[in-house]
């Protein structure tokens, strides 16, 4: 059964609210003296108030896509295509212009706050630096803003926290500080890279609740990078599934996780243990190395449905928000 997809019925209404759109975004990295593609022809948008999942396993290009969107790709990376943030094309901008834009309009939440936050700077200093720089406030006003936002994300005694250091906090509290920092400059888009993966399950639930509350309260667009389809189903409105640099499937989060059209997406779902102890159905083989992607469909060597046709790279319908890159999809797309 396929869920009805609200966005297919009213794409025009959401398009005007779009905070970010990638069109044919590609990233290549210099490896051993040649440019090797790591992300190819990725297109999707994020609108205000919606959570879009970028799903895939390690090496699929999801984090690289995110770093291209915030303008912090690895050194030497070649980013092509179009990237529109709040109606402006940003790929042609200088790094200085990008930085200014990034802090103000895009907030970023990393998986491991310990590596993203400075270990020997007081939390208050890190937050007020960011706020002063991006919002042009005085140090005193920035401190008040930091207290306010720490309070909003549920941190008790925020003034005391500002005097402390990251290592003094628990994993859950660190992630709250990270979220506060991302929200401190009133962004319209927040990109979260596996924000709950390193957290215990009871804390993960708290952080997901917080992120959902923030999304509604500030009408934020959220790009949620994850490998966990349960989180996608539970937290996100739409899903973009990536495999070896390609978008292989795109649609509503409910549709993609309940009735996937791409054999890879279904493989991912079936590989996760459920409530029964029936033998798991793993995807055979392993993800191909970057730079050694097969010709044609990149999933074909691991796919039971592959045939001669799959030697040609399948296209993805750019017009339709619900689309699959497969010659033999599991279900006809409505």
């Amino acid at each position, binding site marked *: 059964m396929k869920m009805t997809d609200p966005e297919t019925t009213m794409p025009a209404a959401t398009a005007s609210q779009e905070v970010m759109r990638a069109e044919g975004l590609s990233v290549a990295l210099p490896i051993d003296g040649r440019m090797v593609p790591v992300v190819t022809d990725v297109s999707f948008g994020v609108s205000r108030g919606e959570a879009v999942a970028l799903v895939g396993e390690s090496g699929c290009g999801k984090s690289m896509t995110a770093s291209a969107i915030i303008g912090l790709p690895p050194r030497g990376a070649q980013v092509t295509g179009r990237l529109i943030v709040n109606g402006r094309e940003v790929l042609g901008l200088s790094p200085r212009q990008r930085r200014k834009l990034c802090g103000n309009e895009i907030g970023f939440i990393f998986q491991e706050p310990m590596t993203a936050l400075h270990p020997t700077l007081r939390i208050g200093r890190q937050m007020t630096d960011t706020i002063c720089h991006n919002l042009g406030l005085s140090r005193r006003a920035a401190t008040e803003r930091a207290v306010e936002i720490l309070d909003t994300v549920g941190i008790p005694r925020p003034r005391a926290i500002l005097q402390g250091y990251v290592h003094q906090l628990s994993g859950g*509290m660190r992630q709250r500080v990270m979220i506060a920092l991302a929200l401190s400059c009133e962004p319209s888009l927040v990109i979260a890279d596996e924000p709950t993966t390193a957290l215990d*399950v*009871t804390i993960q639930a*708290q952080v997901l609740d917080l992120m959902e509350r923030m999304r509604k309260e500030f009408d934020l667009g959220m790009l949620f990078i994850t490998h966990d389809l349960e989180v996608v189903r539970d937290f996100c409105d739409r899903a973009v599934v990536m495999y070896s640099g390609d978008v292989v499937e795109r649609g509503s989060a409910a549709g993609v996780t309940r009735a996937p059209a791409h054999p890879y997406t279904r493989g991912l779902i079936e*590989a996760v243990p459920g409530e029964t102890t029936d033998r798991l159905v*793993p995807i*055979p083989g392993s*993800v191909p190395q970057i730079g050694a992607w097969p010709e044609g469909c990149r999933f074909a060597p691991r796919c039971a449905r592959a045939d001669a046709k799959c030697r040609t790279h399948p296209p993805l319908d750019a017009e339709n928000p619900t689309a699959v890159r497969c010659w033999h999809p599991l279900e006809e797309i409505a």
Partner: protein
Amino acid sequence: MTAPLLETRALCKTFGKVQAVRSVDLALPRGRTFGLVGESGSGKSTVARLVLRLIEATSGDIRFGDEDLRRLGGEALRRRRRRMQMIFQDPYGSLNGRMTVGETLVEPQLVHDIGTGGRARRDRARSLLREVGLPDSAMDRFPHEFSGGQRQRIAIARALATDPELIVADEPVSALDVSVQAQILNLLGDMQREHQTTMLFISHDLRVVRYVCDEIAVMYLGEIVERGPRDRVYDRPAHPYTQALLTSAPGSPRKDGKRAKLAGEIPSADAIPTGCAFRSRCPHAFDRCKIEAPRMQDVGGGQTAACHLLDR
């Protein structure tokens, strides 16, 4: 029922002021997989290291078969270790990067004097590789030439090399992508059935534990709070912490539109609450929980739990 292969009684470990493991009683039935579940800081990995004597317990007993493991020393312990192997979370860190896969699989045979002659040991190494689904050609390659899932296969083959009775697996699939995780879980299951190995399986992932384990113990702040056969614990959790763990996973039913079933965080192990250690986060805590630590009690069907609510 036959005697358990591994049994601990009142096992404790303190690191300075930190009480990492507090009076843990375990009994691992032979040929079964026993799951130890808990969040970070629950002490589950410390228990794994204690039962293998990779670290020494502060107090308590460990029995392996009919031997008092804590009294064994020197040569006797070394011989016993042949019967106990460990699989770690990070197969990159736990394999020697400068040894070929063949050497990695021959070394434990040499150390424990298994097989006669290099040829026999190499033959055995090749058959172990085949058993874990790797080709003979892997023998002469190095760990870094393999993917994470393949490296974990090598670690499993190495664990099998001494034909152990007990395998302790500490988060063996947590570092792997889901598509590969399923391969390794199937392999561990096949291996356990084939060799009738007893396995102590440690994980934070409740879905994985449900799939792999016959019996389960749930740990919180160094203690076991609930224990029992898998289906009993998952279908009828008796302890409020187990109940919260099982319903905190994404996609579980929500209360008041919220996912979080527990407020607050796990207290630090050097400041454990008086009475019931879980009371600071328990939605049902009452006066008695502050004063008196609950004892494990039978709730039927081989399931036990430590909670004062069970007296009500």
